[in-house]
């Protein structure tokens, strides 16, 4: 072990001396995370983004009132701000002036159309500069429309085979349309599994740049070969495994130092909320091990440091994008969401997300196991290939 530590010590000294470690490992991720926060801080994360809506009820009927009631309920949850306006023109003017992001327009005759089973249209007027808010408004309207359609279907089903007066039918339909869904998403649980914007992007950037940082170590073996020092290392009275281990230790040390600096700096300079320190430390260590393993395989199959660097960059960017370093890909669902969990990035982010609601190591055992498994598999392959590569 001592020769490996000697080699790692030498490598660390060289990396710190040429400043590449500070630039790639510390400055770049901190800087990028800060930029991301500035750009996206208003659209992602808890509390940072609150769409402002106006509503005008030109209908005055039962169903229109029901929509207003739903919107007021959402407002009470703190997710939106809502204000009733007297006319469509007033609402549009206020949007033009930037007072509101979008306007819900309940047209005249809306309730009557619903109650008689005819199609009805709920209008959304949106600010062109607030597309996200308008999309959210459209989604709320669509959800309300689905509820109304379900109620209409229920009424038709209930009335099938019965003879009722048109007045009775309208009354039943009106009551049905005002019934709100009994199924709600539990907001407390959702919040507990989400990182705030700052933490999310710092974590994402840290993982993204971790792959560049750890490559310094494992690619060092190719650099030793290129600069002619590998024969001298192999001629020394140390095992070949010590040389490979030395490079792996270099990667681990660089990765852990880089992540630790980022975690601490982000905590105190940017207000990132990481959760239980021990659990975060274990997640960082597991992520660094996984990153070292992946980059070790790339280094092992490359012939030159340049080739390894290029391939590793492609791998780092691909895994970063797939793993959610830039965007919360997993929220897209489907096959893509499943694919993200092939990356240590996704497991790391999930682990931090699990910690966001409190708790310690027991909450992150699955991400830890997943990343360590990835580390063992890729590290084992890389180790075998690198040792065999000495014969080249």
């Amino acid at each position, binding site marked *: 072990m001592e020769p490996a530590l000697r080699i790692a010590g030498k490598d660390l000294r060289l990396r710190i001396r040429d400043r590449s470690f500070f630039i790639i490992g510390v400055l770049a991720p901190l800087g990028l995370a800060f930029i991301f926060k500035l750009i996206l801080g208003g659209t992602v994360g808890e509390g940072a983004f609150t769409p402002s809506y106006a509503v005008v009820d030109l209908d005055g009927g039962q169903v229109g009132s029901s929509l207003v009631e739903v919107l007021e309920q959402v407002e009470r949850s703190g997710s939106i701000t809502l204000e009733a306006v007297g006319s469509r023109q007033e609402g549009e003017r206020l949007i033009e002036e930037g007072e509101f992001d979008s306007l819900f327009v309940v047209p005249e005759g809306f309730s009557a159309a619903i109650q008689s089973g005819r199609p009805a249209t709920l209008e959304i007027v949106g600010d062109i500069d607030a597309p996200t808010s308008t999309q959210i408004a459209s989604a709320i309207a669509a959800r309300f429309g689905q509820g109304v359609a379900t109620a209409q279907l229920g009424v038709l089903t209930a009335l099938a085979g019965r003879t009722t007066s048109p007045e009775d039918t309208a009354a039943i339909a009106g009551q049905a349309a005002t019934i709100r869904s009994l199924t709600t998403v539990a907001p407390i649980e959702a919040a507990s599994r989400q990182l705030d914007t700052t933490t999310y992007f710092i974590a994402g950037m840290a993982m993204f740049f971790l792959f560049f940082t750890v490559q310094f170590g494992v690619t060092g073996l190719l650099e030793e070969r290129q*600069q002619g020092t590998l024969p001298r290392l192999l*001629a020394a009275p140390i*095992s070949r495994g010590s040389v490979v281990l030395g490079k792996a230790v270099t990667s681990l040390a660089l990765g852990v130092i880089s992540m630790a600096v980022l975690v601490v700096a982000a905590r105190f300079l940017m207000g990132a909320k990481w959760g239980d320190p021990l659990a975060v430390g274990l997640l960082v260590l597991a992520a660094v091990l996984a990153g070292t393993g992946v980059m070790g395989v790339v280094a092992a199959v490359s012939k030159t440091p340049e080739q390894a660097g290029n391939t590793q960059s492609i791998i780092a960017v691909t895994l970063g994008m797939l793993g959610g370093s830039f965007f919360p890909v997993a929220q897209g669902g489907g096959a893509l969401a499943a694919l993200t969990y092939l990356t240590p990035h996704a497991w790391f982010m999930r682990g931090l997300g699990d910690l966001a609601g409190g708790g310690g190591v027991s909450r992150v055992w699955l991400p830890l196991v997943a990343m360590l498994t990835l580390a063992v598999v890729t590290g084992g392959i890389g180790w075998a290939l690198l040792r065999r590569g000495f014969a080249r």
Partner: protein
Amino acid sequence: MSGELVLEATGLRKRFGDNQAVNGVDISVGPGETFGLLGPNGAGKTTSISMIAGLLAADSGSVMVAGRPINTRSTDAKAAIGLVPQDLAIYPDLSARENLTFFGRLYGMKGPSLAKRIAEVLEVIGLADRANDRTKEFSGGMKRRLNIGIGLLHQPTLLILDEPTVGVDPQSRNAILESVEQLSRAGMAVLYTTHYMEEAERLCDRVAIIDQGVVKAEGTRRQLVELVGEADRIHITATGDLQAARAAAASVSGVLEATVADHSIEVMAGMASSLLPEVLARVAAGGAAITSVAVIEPNLEAVFLHLTGKALRD
């Protein structure tokens, strides 16, 4: 016998794909002996010493250094070897002292003894005053000297130098050769590969001529010359009756051939130095006035040419 040898490599073979790089090489080096491996680029020199130093696994054959077997899995036994690779094996962003310290520690050296040895080596290689400068600021010759210094640091039993003067200016080259001569005089066994005939002649007690992975011949310079039947040449510049003088020279016992060309007489002989007085006396008696004399012994270049049919630098 083998117990006295510092290096005994037997039957080394190595193939890379279709290329049989080394094909049955035997090398032995005794204590205090400087052994040269002379051959052109691609002859198999570096592959041979890579197997001897335990860098490369041999397809077959064995290597014993200081009585212990060497292969790619050897660890402690490698401490007997000091390797100076052909390419510079130093870290440019470390100082000379830091390079020496790093490699010294890999060889188990530490503390005051390491510091003392580093100071000694820096003196030997003439870099004591630049010890703390980063090596990327060094000249090519200084880097070469440090490259050798690292190989010497742990006072190995066998020092292997793989073409240490390639790309070096004449002054640094001479300094390197002097260093090797000093080490040899100090009793260190040296295995020296080169494609420079002059270096092999100057440094080596014995030389193996290698080409296409095969040792063509091995011995002292004189043994190699005799082996291929090359003769010494006495070049006599003279005036007067050169034909009569030629005939007189040819009559000396031991002279193989004598010819006249452009105011000079060329005399071929096995041991020219011992025949020289008599040859000169006969030439003078034959009616020629001698103006200059030169004795030219056949060199390893000629031997190599004879053995392989090509020049060393081909």
